[in-house]
């Protein structure tokens, strides 16, 4: 070795060691870093309620809570991409129910059984069976309910009273109410027919008639069956009574139209009550009521929340969930205007019922509500069906043709 090379070698080793130590210091959590958690949320009343609860949690536990708010679509993508890279930088994540199966299939969510065993104060048995099943993938709980929002009928009680209408108990009655409203100069119905959201309201009709989107083992679509055709017929029969903006707009557009215009009825998740009915900015305050979906069971929706795998502080994340969603703190959701998780104790509380006038309908529908199938391909299935329903509703395609196309697309996705 030349002298220069001889001197270079230890210098290189020292440099490498310094870099390694530096990187190690940057990656390894310090004592103070482990006292913080990161929560992935998307803009919603439920997320706002979590943010309200966080300061009290920090005061009690010393764990600082950092919230990262991203658009709805980005939640799942961020989790999946981080999961692929080997570490997820979020300790808690808010997820929507159709996204739970993809996340579990990718190995991005932690099963909650040990959470239930460790945090008894969470009282996991304080939920109706359907709500518990809503949080499970193949019988294993992977999430907790952050909100419970079965689909129901929102209606304008002032217009109904004026026209002498009664909340519909059959779809025929629903359509005749819509026609009566239209005749009196109001919009009769406010379903979304958009290429992204149409499936939600169409499936609500389908489920109420006893139909399903997929067969029992989720291997084939069942959307060309007579009951699916009947659901499509009912769904499309409401188009003439629907504001044009809702037809191609998504659910968000339908909800704003319902809050802004004279629309008799809308089918939506109960959680939208507060956003439409807020005394501060609602045009329909004092004029709104809710009734169950006509004929049969409804579809259950609502935010879920879980613990991502490979997260920096899983214990801190679990502590936050146990604190925020425990029966002791869940009333904060109601006072913050967020739809609460459907705890049996909460829903039967007279105080809560008096604060949320829709609670009796929620109680009535929650116990019988069904959820969409949990399969990893569900996001694609929902878009495929929505696109065809939108085409049937707006682009002159026949129901038979559109549903057959959807059936073949979904079968190819499932296959």
């Amino acid at each position: 070795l030349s002298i220069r090379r001889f001197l270079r070698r230890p210098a290189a080793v020292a440099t490498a060691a310094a870099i390694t130590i530096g990187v190690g210091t940057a990656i390894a959590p310090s004592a103070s870093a482990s006292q913080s958690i990161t929560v992935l949320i998307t803009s919603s009343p439920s997320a706002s309620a979590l943010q309200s609860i966080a300061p009290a949690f920090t005061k009690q536990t010393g764990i600082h809570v950092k919230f990262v708010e991203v658009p709805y679509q980005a939640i799942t993508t961020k989790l999946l991409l981080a999961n692929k890279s080997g570490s997820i930088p979020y300790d808690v994540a808010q997820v929507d129910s159709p996204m739970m199966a993809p996340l579990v299939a990718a190995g991005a969510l932690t099963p909650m059984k040990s959470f239930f065993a460790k945090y008894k104060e969470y009282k996991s048995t304080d939920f109706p069976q359907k709500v518990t099943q809503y949080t499970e993938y193949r019988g294993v709980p992977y999430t907790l309910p952050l909100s419970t929002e079965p689909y129901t009928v929102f209606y304008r009680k002032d217009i109904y009273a004026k026209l002498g209408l009664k909340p519909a108990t059959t779809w025929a009655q629903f359509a005749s109410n819509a026609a009566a409203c239209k005749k009196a100069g109001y919009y009769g119905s406010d379903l979304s027919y958009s290429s992204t959201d149409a499936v939600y309201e169409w499936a609500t009709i389908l489920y109420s008639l006893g139909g399903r989107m997929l067969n029992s083992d989720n291997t084939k679509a069942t959307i060309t069956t007579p009951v699916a055709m009947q659901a499509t017929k009912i769904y499309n029969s409401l188009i003439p009574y629907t504001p044009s903006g809702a037809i191609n707009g998504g659910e968000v557009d339908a909800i704003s139209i319902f809050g802004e215009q004279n629309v008799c009825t809308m089918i939506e998740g109960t959680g939208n009550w507060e956003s439409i009915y807020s005394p501060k900015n609602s045009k329909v305050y004092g004029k709104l009521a809710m009734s169950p979906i006509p004929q049969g069971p409804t579809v259950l929706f609502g935010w879920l929340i879980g613990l991502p795998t490979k997260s920096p502080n899983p214990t801190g994340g679990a502590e936050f969930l146990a604190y925020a969603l425990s029966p002791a703190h869940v009333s904060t959701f109601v006072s913050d205007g967020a739809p609460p998780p459907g705890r049996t104790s909460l829903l039967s509380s007279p105080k809560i019922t008096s604060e949320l006038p829709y609670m009796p309908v929620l109680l009535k529908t929650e116990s019988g509500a069904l959820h969409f199938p949990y399969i990893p391909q569900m996001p694609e299935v929902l878009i495929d069906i929505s696109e065809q329903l939108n085409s049937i509703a707006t682009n002159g395609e026949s129901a038979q043709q559109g549903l057959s196309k959807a059936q073949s697309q979904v079968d190819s996705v499932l296959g």
Partner: protein
Amino acid sequence: MTSPETAQALTVDRQGQPSAEATRQSGLARRSARPTRPIVLRAIWLTVPAWLVVIFGGLIPLLELVRMATYSGSLLTPGPAHYVGLGNLRAAFEGQGVLHQIVVTLIVAVAGLLVQFPIGYAIARVLTWRPRFLRIWQAILVVPLVLTPVAIGLVWKFVLDPTLGLERWAFSAFGVQVNLFASTPLALATIVGVDAWLNIPFVIVLLYAGMLALPQEQLEASHLDGASWWQEQRYVQLPLLKPVLLVTAIIRVINDIMLFDIIYILTSGGPGTSTETMSLLSYQEMFQFFQSGQAAAVALVLALIAIPTIVMFNRFVRPRI
């Protein structure tokens, strides 16, 4: 000094072939014209930044795209991806019917060009006549250029909303109700229209600059020769503007082939899938269905569609030495 005749005799032998002397001299000339080693090294060193940009900014992402497109990529499946060749492409063509999206992409690009170009050209021409309040017109016309497409999409979505938007009032004045997003031709026309509103200023700026830079001598000569307005346009101005026209057209075509934000906000591909372009499909595959392999395959097809126009662009912007 060698006379031309002698030089000819030196370079050609009796059979008319180049002589050995001529060959030697031409070899020497070639060798003396060849850059020396230090010059070559310096040239390489000076172009290193450009090469780094090309490699890291273009080549590596492109190779990564090809790799993703040929591997079984899905964010939903744990574990490493394996090579599938054209499997992703086949799946994209079979499952989503990519041909439809290719046709929609081309319709949007061609219609966009046909709308943006004549209007942009006409306005640029009017501006060269120096109308009153020229500076104000210039400022107004450039406004859309500084707005983000997402903001423009949202504004137009609100304006054209058939229930809550301004469009409702405009059409109700004529006693009709039109939902622009509920029929394929109207939805496509709306996309092309909003895209034109956003990009016509770009065409104006480029063509206006080109028109101002035209050599005045040639225009004056055509006047003196008695050329009519039309003849001046047809035989003098348009040929002189040809490079600018072509480059502007190519940039617009490439941008419209890639168009995503406006379509996503205005129609999300609807009604049905009738306004779904390749960009939208690629986004859907990646961010809604989490199929990174198929998303990359669709993006690769999109790149292949855009490549001929990019090659044409390079041809026209290459400096002529």
